[in-house]
């Protein structure tokens, strides 16, 4: 069973298995999301990271086990930027507003809604881009826009699929800080990442996945050569630099051959 939190459980997966067609992607996974959780899910491609996120989101049905969600849980999701149709005819403002599906049904925004959207965009530093088409944003701005859309729902649980994929170092830092602030505000956060050094090592709690939960705990507990080899199926070295864990790709003999 995994989870940092001691607070109330928002979502729990007990012995859950999931599959696409006939291929099992996750096998008998136990995973609890507490209200004060901030967890990174790491693992190689095809390990079931996004599947785990989709189970938490509720868009994938387990084929075995039980999935329990707190009633009326407000979940928000930030998709992988690569999966978005950037040619869709929509402005930043319209994209953020679309998450307001409850209550008002009229196509246009009310004064209150307009103020709320602009306030969230302002908090994320992209208020001046509100009338731009979504394709005209940089990677970091696109990520912020989806965060804004998620925040407009005032979520209890925020799920992010590879939030730092394809963004530069500075944007990655910004996103980490933003997520830290949101967690401080009481939002439970679960994200997937394959960026061990730039993202995972900075999170308070990690879960290593490869069709099952290989390990979970703090970065110090999880980012070890043994766990990483079991998770990724490859030897990795772990160094410590200025108090931070640094994963070095490949065993020494592999690196020397490459050089």
């Amino acid at each position, binding site marked *: 069973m995994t989870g940092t939190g001691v607070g109330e459980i928002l979502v729990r997966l007990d012995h859950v298995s999931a599959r696409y067609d006939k291929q099992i992607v996750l096998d008998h996974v136990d995973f609890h999301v507490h209200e004060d959780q901030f967890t990174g899910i790491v693992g190689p491609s095809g390990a079931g990271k996004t599947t785990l996120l989709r189970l938490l989101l*509720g868009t994938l*049905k387990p084929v075995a086990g039980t999935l329990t969600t707190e009633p009326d849980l407000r*979940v928000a999701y930030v998709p992988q930027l690569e999966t978005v149709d950037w040619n869709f*005819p*929509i402005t930043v403002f319209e994209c953020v507003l*679309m*998450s307001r599906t409850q209550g008002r*049904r*009229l196509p246009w925004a009310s004064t209150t809604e307009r103020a709320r959207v602009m306030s969230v965009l302002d908090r994320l530093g992209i208020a001046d881009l509100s009338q731009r088409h979504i394709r005209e944003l940089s990677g970091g701005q696109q990520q912020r826009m989806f965060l804004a859309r998620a925040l407009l729902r005032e979520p209890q649980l925020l799920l992010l699929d590879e939030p730092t994929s394809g963004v530069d170092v500075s944007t990655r830092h910004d996103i980490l800080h933003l997520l830290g602030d949101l967690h401080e505000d009481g939002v439970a956060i679960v994200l997937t990442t394959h960026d061990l050094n730039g993202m995972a090592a900075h999170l308070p709690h990690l879960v290593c996945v490869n069709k099952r939960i290989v390990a979970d705990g703090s970065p110090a507990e999880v980012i070890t050569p043994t766990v990483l080899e079991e998770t990724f199926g490859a030897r990795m070295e772990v160094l410590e630099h200025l108090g931070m864990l640094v994963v070095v790709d490949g065993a020494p003999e592999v690196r020397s051959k490459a050089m």
Partner: protein
Amino acid sequence: MDALFEPLSYAFFNKGLIVATLSGALLGFIGVFIVLRGMSYIGHGLSHSIFGGFAASQLFAAQFYMLGAGLWGIASALAITTVARRGRVGADAAIGVITTASFALGVALFAKFGTSGPSFENALFGSILGISVQQIIGLVAVSILAAVFVFLRYRALIFSTFDPDVADVSGVRVARLEAMLMIVLSLAILATLTVIGVTLVAAMLVIPAVIGRMLTDSFGKMLAWSTGIGMFCGFVGMYASYYAGVPSGTMIVLVGAVIFVIVLAITGGRGLRRSAGLDKHHDVAELAPVVTR
């Protein structure tokens, strides 16, 4: 100038002009959602499927053939959605099987028993002859239904078109909305079939929407452009068909094609960039996630 007003002296032309203009507007309006969802093939398939219902209904209940064809179309749309959602057969394959089988049945019934309504050729390519007041009322009713549906579900429709998975967990009942859109689409195709024709309805769902996309980056403006362009195509195409002496559907589609070329020449690469990706295919199953809560 007199030549321009001459066709208006014929009652059948006036009815045809009203129906063609309204049909163009309706198909342009609904077409935006169909095109942006990458579902153009569904429009094509449904029109063929409805043709089967058209023929069968005339055979068994001639006075209610429009109702029968409508029910047939809705049943086909829901069957496609259901078969595709079960995951064993893709949406393309489901459309291919269900709608072409329905079309083949229609052709067989026409060949064997003939028809008491529109001729085979008119059903395929559209005609302005024999348009009844009831058909005009039906088209107006479907247009109002489509407008009210989009107005009340505007945000949910945009959300589920852009990002169906997230829409689903954000309170949008994507599967239900999808079914409602399919029903509105079926009714729109049915109501416009007589003037535009089975084989050309799909073109009028796609062409105005694509032109609209080339002209703007805003969803609301695309909806307005597409509706306006569809309306223009219907009006001008109907006039052109009168003078050219060819089926109305063909001229309506050709006017749309000419506008497409003109807009392409004006917008150039910008227009092409905007409309890029409109051919991407969303599986119906993908649009309606497995679990809702």
